[in-house]
């Protein structure tokens, strides 16, 4: 049981001929303990992932669903108008087919942008504050108002989750980044522009006012 010796070792009675022996035992000990840490780490990662995967999925699902609601409806509206034109008129105005193409393009950009942002989420506040502590910069407060309301705005106050990564779309911002459904971060036109264009087409074609009201509602919801 040579390892017992290494625990008892006080550093006082060293004979040169024992030095290599103790060094080796020490190395062996350190190696084994490092291995234990690594094994623990691997076990921990597996369990951590298992615990949070469904939670993450549910969160992402709701965010994804919210982000495509308006563009999906607009696509349906324009497609219906196109069908109506094909059945009722000798020709379909190019403005209609053109708008449909632009809507599809916007949809593709939105999906791409969502994918890109979710591949590389920004570190959370808690990650940053840990690092700052390591650098000896002093504690970053994760909550600035003690629950009593904050004058800096709703995305200043963090909830207790370590996994705060950011909202997607017109949700109340409670996390640290926004998915780019903000029109100017997606290449091409904004949803508002497309909705306005659709309203113009409905007016030009003399279609029911109710449709314009519905488009107006969609526009207000995305502002």
């Amino acid at each position: 049981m040579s390892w017992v010796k290494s625990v008892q070792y006080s550093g006082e009675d060293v004979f040169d001929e024992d030095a290599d022996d103790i060094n080796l035992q020490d190395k062996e000990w350190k190696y084994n303990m490092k291995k234990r840490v690594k094994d623990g780490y691997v076990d921990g990662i597996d369990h951590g992932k298992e615990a949070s995967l469904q939670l993450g999925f549910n969160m992402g699902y709701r965010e994804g669903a919210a982000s495509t609601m308006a563009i999906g409806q607009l696509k349906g509206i324009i497609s219906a108008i196109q069908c109506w034109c094909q059945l009722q008129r000798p020709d379909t105005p190019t403005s209609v087919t053109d708008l449909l193409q632009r809507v599809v393009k916007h949809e593709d950009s939105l999906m791409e942008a969502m994918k890109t942002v979710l591949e590389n989420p920004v570190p959370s506040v808690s990650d940053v504050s840990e690092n700052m502590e390591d650098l000896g910069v002093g504690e970053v407060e994760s909550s600035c108002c003690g629950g009593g309301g904050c004058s800096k705005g709703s995305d200043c106050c963090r909830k207790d989750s370590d996994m705060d990564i950011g909202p997607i779309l017109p949700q109340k911002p409670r996390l640290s980044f926004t998915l780019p459904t903000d029109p100017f971060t997606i290449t091409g036109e904004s949803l508002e522009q497309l909705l306005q264009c659709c309203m113009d087409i409905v007016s030009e074609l003399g279609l029911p006012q109710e449709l314009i009201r519905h488009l107006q509602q969609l526009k207000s919801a995305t502002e």
Partner: protein
Amino acid sequence: MAHKSEDLFDCILMADDRFHVEGYWEGFDEGTRQGMVDGRKHGASHGAKLSMEVSFYYGFGITWKCLLQNNTDMKARKRLKVLESLLGLIQKFPHEEPQYEHLQEDMEKVRAKFRQVCSLLNVPTDFSDYVKSGGSGGISF
């Protein structure tokens, strides 16, 4: 002497355990982070696609309802009835809720109703993205 060597054993075993546990919690934090990121990515993709499809049917239905609203002939009334049925189905369907237990089932009902609407309207159903059962069969992990 025996007592002292028991302490030594404890010391070693505890050290072994302690290192494992240290590594475990560090790994757990990292795993939790990775799981959230991966889960969120997949969830967002599923949610976005499903919502896109359902919202498309809704927009389509709402528009045709507006267009046919003032017609009083039998054909229009029959079409309006089916359109109202489609819109009603969608309104009651919590498609943005990933844990909804009848998600797939209700989705199939909505799709079937949409096909019925298109058939009544004599609209070619070449919205091939949506008419086929798009996406994977199961939504939840």
